[in-house]
């Protein structure tokens, strides 16, 4: 049974989510990939305001394809998250509570998630056509020059994600594989 969550995602809410939970996410989320993360962290280092409020925000690691006429957004599945590992702890410290991507995260990210209360969600990599249907609205809010890598404000409804790493550091990539292998050995 899926849990329904609507953003903003507070730290308290984030702490209630557990690794392996299936979640349908609704509300406003922001897109950012490598180049946008670099710029956000450069702003943060100079103590300047970010182009959107990261407090209780969820960032989706995605660079969508251009929307066809009539579409809110093009195909929009997750990109591999470890490339954002250098930047995520800074944003988590500033109040970010959720990240959506796919693939492993480094110990420095997990540490920041535990310390501040944040979750790492996985969306299905390679299912961009399916996932784009959950996006109702998309507008560029910063770094238009980055093209697909610009920061977009998305309104989503029932975006299907799974909690991979929770705020206690429990990791579905470890437990899922272990449980499957145990089921085969029986």
């Amino acid at each position: 049974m899926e849990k329904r969550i609507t953003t903003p995602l507070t730290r308290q809410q984030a702490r209630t989510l557990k690794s392996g939970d299936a979640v349908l996410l609704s509300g406003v989320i922001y897109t950012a990939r490598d180049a946008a993360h670099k710029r956000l962290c450069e702003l943060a280092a100079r103590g300047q305001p970010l182009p959107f409020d990261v407090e209780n925000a969820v960032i989706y690691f995605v660079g969508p394809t251009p929307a066809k006429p009539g579409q809110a957004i093009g195909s929009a599945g997750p990109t591999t998250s470890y490339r954002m590992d250098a930047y995520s702890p800074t944003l988590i410290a500033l109040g970010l509570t959720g990240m959506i991507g796919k693939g492993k995260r480094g110990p420095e990210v997990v540490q920041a998630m535990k310390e501040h209360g944040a979750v790492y969600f996985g969306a299905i990599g390679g299912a961009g056509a399916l996932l784009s249907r959950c996006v109702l609205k998309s507008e560029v809010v910063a770094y238009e020059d980055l093209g697909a890598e610009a920061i977009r404000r998305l309104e989503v409804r029932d975006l299907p994600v799974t909690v991979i790493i929770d705020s206690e550091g429990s990791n579905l990539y470890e437990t899922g594989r272990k449980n499957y292998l145990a089921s085969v050995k029986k």
Partner: protein
Amino acid sequence: MREIPASLITDAVQRMCVSANCNLPGDVRRCIEQSRACEQWQPAQGILDKIIENYGIAEQNSVPICQDTGVACVFLEIGQDVHIEGPLREAVDEGVRRGYEQGFLRKSVVRDPLERVNTGDNTPAMLYIDLVPGDKVRITVAPKGFGSENMSRIKMLRPSDGIEGVRDFVVQAVEEAGPNPCPPVVVGVGIGGTFDKAAFLAKKALMRPLDVRAEKPLYRELEQDLLERVNALGVGPQGFGGRTTALAVNIEWLPTHIAGLPVAVNLNCHVTRHATEVL
């Protein structure tokens, strides 16, 4: 000598950039659907169902299967009795430029790996040219996503490492990649040649249909053995656990030096895309 205007190559590349990104090849679909039928782990079944639903939506609506519409890898097998009228590289790049614009595909190429400014039109293509007998031109367009490309590996093994060394290296590459390359993956393996040729063979292996096995029995058996070992890892679709870690292992090989045993692993995600036309 048969004359082929370069504009025909542009047109073909344009068509295939769009079709390859929106229509998953039949061999890949069949393989995913067979894997779904064999998968016993419930979370894995759910993910495979979504993957199948996704490529159905993409085909129906002519939208990209995945937002990473890749760098355009273009393989040209040019008959020796063909003369191409006009500049070839420009013709291919023009096809990529038009295809990525017309198909609403993502532009994912930066001009310089260190300066990192997007070229804005997904050019240049990665071009692989081979001269073959005959008077035809065979063009394959394979958009390659980088989630899987980044998880690829190469190693110069010692001859004494033998088949066990190759086996361990391939299985380890898939295990270490884990969830990152969007499993279920296709594993392209290149064995032999030189450092660079092994990497090329691994990429070429990804172009072979998933239901076609290596010709030489030694490699056919190694493909089967590696597929079983990789699918015993338990990584599963998206890394959430399950049997279906890989859809296929394809091996290409070449003669090599007495002192060497190069091995390369080029991973591809479940969105293993390619289209081919013969002019």
